[in-house]
């Protein structure tokens, strides 16, 4: 009566139950997937907000004061929106062109904004969002947490923290779980997050505020923040890290090791159970039914 029976005794009733339940599961999944496909990121202020949280919030606040970069409250009224669009799309190029505003910003904040590789739609969305956050005039706000990045950390301690040999005081996972650098030997660090080789040259000390502010790290570290000492140690490590690219091909090495290990296990199974398949009858049947039985004299 039930579909879990094999072959001929599979009944219709049970099959129907199974199909209905599978349909329900599929429906649940389908709803979710279609929802995801229904709203691709567009240029709306709402998309801009999500984008801001993901890509900008590490260095900029809105109305909370300056962080590594300026407070962006009212930036769309403060500056020409065309300029904002150009700067968002390619801050490095704007700065290189000798743009006076960009040069002034650099001398004030002393950090070059990295090129985030935003698309045109993303820039539109961000500007739309920043527009809704303009308020009246930017009120003078006290600077948020003073960015006391002294970078007098100990790079050996930083290395231990990065590789997980020393644990973070508040229980956050070690960097190596998701990141690698050129300095980590043999199989390297994790590949879930970006390779941090040369990251400090690009991003500067801003890296220190990332764990608690940038998704997906934010969800993990917001309740387990790094201490200032730990950040300093890590920054010291990143500053001194080599920038030579070119990790060995780890996936290939791992795949080879996996195949070798698997072969070893198969060999072991063969050794342990070598008698298991040596029945008396099978050999006799094989002899009787072999097309070569006349030659073999079975």
């Amino acid at each position, binding site marked *: 009566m039930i579909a879990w029976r094999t072959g001929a005794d599979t009944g219709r009733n049970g099959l129907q139950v199974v199909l209905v339940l599978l349909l329900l599961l599929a429906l649940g*999944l389908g709803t979710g997937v279609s929802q995801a496909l229904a709203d691709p990121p567009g240029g709306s202020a709402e998309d801009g907000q999500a984008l801001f949280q993901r890509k900008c919030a590490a260095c900029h606040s809105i109305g909370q004061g300056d962080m590594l970069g300026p407070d962006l409250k009212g930036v769309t009224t403060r500056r020409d929106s065309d300029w904002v669009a150009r700067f968002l799309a390619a801050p490095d190029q704007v700065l290189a062109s000798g743009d006076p505003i960009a040069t002034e910003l650099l001398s004030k904040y002393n950090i070059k904004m990295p090129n985030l590789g935003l698309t045109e739609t993303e820039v539109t969305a961000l500007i739309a969002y920043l527009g809704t956050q303009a308020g009246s005039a930017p009120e003078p706000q006290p600077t948020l947490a003073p960015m006391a990045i002294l970078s007098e950390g100990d790079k050996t301690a930083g290395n231990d923290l990065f590789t997980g040999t020393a644990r973070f005081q508040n229980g956050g996972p070690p960097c190596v779980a998701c990141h690698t650098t050129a300095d980590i030997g043999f199989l390297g660090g994790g590949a879930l997050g970006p390779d941090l080789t040369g990251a400090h040259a690009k991003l500067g000390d801003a890296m220190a505020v990332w764990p608690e502010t940038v998704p997906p790290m934010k969800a993990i570290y917001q309740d387990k923040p790094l201490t200032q000492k730990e950040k300093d140690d890590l920054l010291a490590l990143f500053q001194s890290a080599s920038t030579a690219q070119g990790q060995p091909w780890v996936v290939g090495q791992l795949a080879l090791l996996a195949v070798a290990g698997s072969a070893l296990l198969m060999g072991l199974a063969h050794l342990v159970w070598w008698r298991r398949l040596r029945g008396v009858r099978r050999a006799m049947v094989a002899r009787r039914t072999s097309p070569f039985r006349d030659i073999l004299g079975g």
Partner: protein
Amino acid sequence: MIDIVLFAAFPYMAVLVAVLVGVYRYFNDRFSYSSFSSQFLENRALFWGSVSWHYAVIVILLAHVLALVFSGGWATLIAAPVRLYTLEVIGLALSASALLGLVLLILRRLLNARIFTVTSTMDWVLLAALLAQVVLGLWTALFYRWGSDWSLATVAPWLVSLAKLSPQTELVASLPWVVKLHMLGGFAIIALFPFTRLVHLVTFPITYLWRPYQVVVWNWRKKQT
């Protein structure tokens, strides 16, 4: 919204289906709680397939459970890179063995006429689900290293939050799709459990561990060797 559907609603639904249908099947068709062994019909390919698959997948499942239940101890275990690499390589070797065994079992069911005849639709569904799950796991282990480490800060607390009935989907929301599919696949297989021969999981004779001992007496002379 999609995260709630996939990583909160779906897991609960899957477990609910597994328990309800599992209990229903137990009380209405108890004899079917079995692996429906086909060893009588064919045992050569079965040996290599079944041994590789079962031993490997049991150890891997055990590692998943241990990392979840003893997250702190697991984190200490992999704190030194050498230990992390060793553990990951052992896991990969076992995954490769499981994959090999599973492929052998699938080929056996496809190519052996006698076995093909006793294979139900749900058997194929289960085999496909298991294959997908192993490939996704292997893919994660190879390309999104080191899962045994980052899962402690993402997947493990998410599962704990599910168990506490206050799902924190944001912990896993930003993982790559391959990893997400592996997590969803796990719950899909839990949902499949009561509809397939996977029910033989709960027939493992674990009661041997605490049943009263039995005295075995041979009433003939032991053969001289």
